[in-house]
């Protein structure tokens, strides 16, 4: 009964309609702009929106992870390996030489991604169990420690993961627009589910823990249980994002566990707006766009032409320059707009609305 009621309120909520509309637009934009580079950027944005949203979901329960790359990696390796082995079995069953891309292969990919997510959530459960007693810096350190351990383990079990040279994924969905469409569907589902949970009673408990854990405990919330649930849900979706990422770049190696990948969802969420639904998406759009545009040949050429002479030790000034800009923007946002870009949009919106009000008075 309760679930049904909250589903109804969800369907009526403005934010949810906004999410649906946004992803609908997202799905159709690449049809209008027929461009490979644009499609790549859009796909990356959507994948990392899921990843950032999963981090943001965990942060919403008061747990800031500095090792989310563990789950991006586990999801990636697991779904890549599972997808390959299932399709190998299917190939020998069908008697063909290669996996035909079609309904079956799409089903295999979805299955592999879900199993990858579940495995990631399983590891998340174990790590979460170790973390329920820890807070703030302590939690950040321990989660980071796990990302170092994960990188070591994956290179140690190289015969399975091939993490040193990289594990090449099997093509299960045609690359380009079909794959993008699938990413958008996954993003829509994942972000909607996380949004739904955030709006439910459970989400209320998460926010209560975030606000003040001792008080939340006092009013009868089982804080350890809810923190663990948040960890498992968040790591499940981070695993899904990892799987999509692996299938998109068609190769996954140990560098996926790098600190940079752990910091990524945090930076995206903060730039966009921490704790909001749209924040991680906006952050992902922002981050990925800057990073990808700096790799465009025309941009690279003009940057190297203008600045190359000053930096003789670097062959390509684009990537470091773009990350430098992101660092500066992050600090500027934290200092001047701590609620992220979305708060700026709200301010601009309010400003525009407030200018119209006096006009209405005049008409009266």
């Amino acid at each position, binding site marked *: 009964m309760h679930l049904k009621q909250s589903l109804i309120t969800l369907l009526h909520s403005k934010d949810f309609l906004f999410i649906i509309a946004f992803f609908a637009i997202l799905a159709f934009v690449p049809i209008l702009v027929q461009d490979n580079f644009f499609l790549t950027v859009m796909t990356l944005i959507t994948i990392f929106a899921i990843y950032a949203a999963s981090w943001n979901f965990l942060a919403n329960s008061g747990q800031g992870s500095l090792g989310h790359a563990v789950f991006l990696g586990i999801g990636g390796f697991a779904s890549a390996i599972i997808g390959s082995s299932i399709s190998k079995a299917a190939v020998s069953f069908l008697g063909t030489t290669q996996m035909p891309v079609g309904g079956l292969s799409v089903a295999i990919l979805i299955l592999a991604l879900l199993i990858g997510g579940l495995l990631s959530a399983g590891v998340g459960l174990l790590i979460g169990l170790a973390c329920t007693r820890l807070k703030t810096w302590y939690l950040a*350190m321990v989660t980071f420690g*796990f990302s*170092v351990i994960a990188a070591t383990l994956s290179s140690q079990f190289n015969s399975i993961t091939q993490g040193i040279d990289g594990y090449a994924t099997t093509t299960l969905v045609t690359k380009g627009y079909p794959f993008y469409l699938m990413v958008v569907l996954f993003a829509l589902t994942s972000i909607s589910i996380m949004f739904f949970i955030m709006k439910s009673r459970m989400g209320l408990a998460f926010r209560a823990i975030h606000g003040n854990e001792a008080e939340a405990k006092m009013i009868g919330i089982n804080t350890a249980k809810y923190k663990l649930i948040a960890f498992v849900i968040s790591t499940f979706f981070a695993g899904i994002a990892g799987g999509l990422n692996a299938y998109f770049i068609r190769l996954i190696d140990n560098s996926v566990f790098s600190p940079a990948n752990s910091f990524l969802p*945090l930076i995206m969420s903060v730039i966009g707006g921490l704790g909001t639904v749209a924040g991680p998406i906006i952050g992902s759009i922002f981050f990925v766009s800057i990073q990808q545009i700096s790799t465009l040949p025309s941009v690279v050429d003009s940057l190297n032409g203008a600045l190359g002479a000053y*930096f003789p*030790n*670097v062959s390509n000034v684009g990537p*470091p320059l773009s990350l430098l800009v992101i660092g500066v923007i992050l600090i500027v946002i934290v*200092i001047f707009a*701590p609620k992220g870009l979305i708060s700026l949009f709200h301010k601009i919106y309010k400003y525009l609305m407030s200018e119209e009000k006096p006009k209405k008075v005049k008409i009266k």
Partner: protein
Amino acid sequence: MDITAPTIFLTLVWGVVIGCVYILLATGLNIIFGVMKLVNFAHGQLLMISAFLTWTLSVSLGLNAYVAIFVSMIVVALLGVVVERFTFRKVLGTDKLNEIFVSLGLIYIFENIAMLIWGASSKQVLSPFYGMSASLPGLSITYDRIIAVFVVVGALAIFGLLLRKTKIGLAMRATSQRNTTAMLMGINVQKVYMFTFAIGAALAAVAGGLYGIIYPFDYQVGALPTIIAFAIIIMGGLGSIKGAIIGGLLYGITEQMATLFLGGTWGSAVAFALLIVVLIIRPIGIFGEKGE
């Protein structure tokens, strides 16, 4: 390498040496945390910048590497003042998370500036004692590693004297106890913060110079040492100098022993596993006190 008694002893010494570098970094982080209640995740990037500065000074100006460390220490301390003034001061006292976000921004800025200036290739500072080592029966230890330990002990001693015997040290200790009361006693807390950050940065700079002499480094070298220094502080208990020293030695020795017995890739993994075990058993660290 065969595992014999001398190799184990040598590994122990290496563990102490790298542990000393970590202790220096951790002490800087710890004093900044103690006085300002601020966690600077970009602390290891100061180490990295200092390693590069030491390299540039010793290669292009032909300075003695150990003199270069001293010069680089002053430059990085000034850099610390600038960083404190224009970034951390703006977010101090707001949400705790903002400090982590600002330091992540600083990590991106420092690393990419270093990459733009010095490139992506790995470098090592050439010390005047390069290739020379003290021979003991069955093993030899490079002079640089021995000097590193003495430099660390010296730096910590100077730091301890500064904290205990000088007026600014007294002000720092007072501010670390309660900044509002310190303010009422006529201490310029803002100035103390600036000085504390500079001292912390200077300690990181010394650690960076020593690191650059002992190990090859590149622009990404700072990330792991920060986390390690932080792990050491947590392991020892936040705010405890004694804890940081014991934590640092424990970490360094564990890391080197794991490398010897299990292979190179296991070094940091085992050391972090130790941290995780310590924190699960005792969430406030070995010497930590309840409350903060």
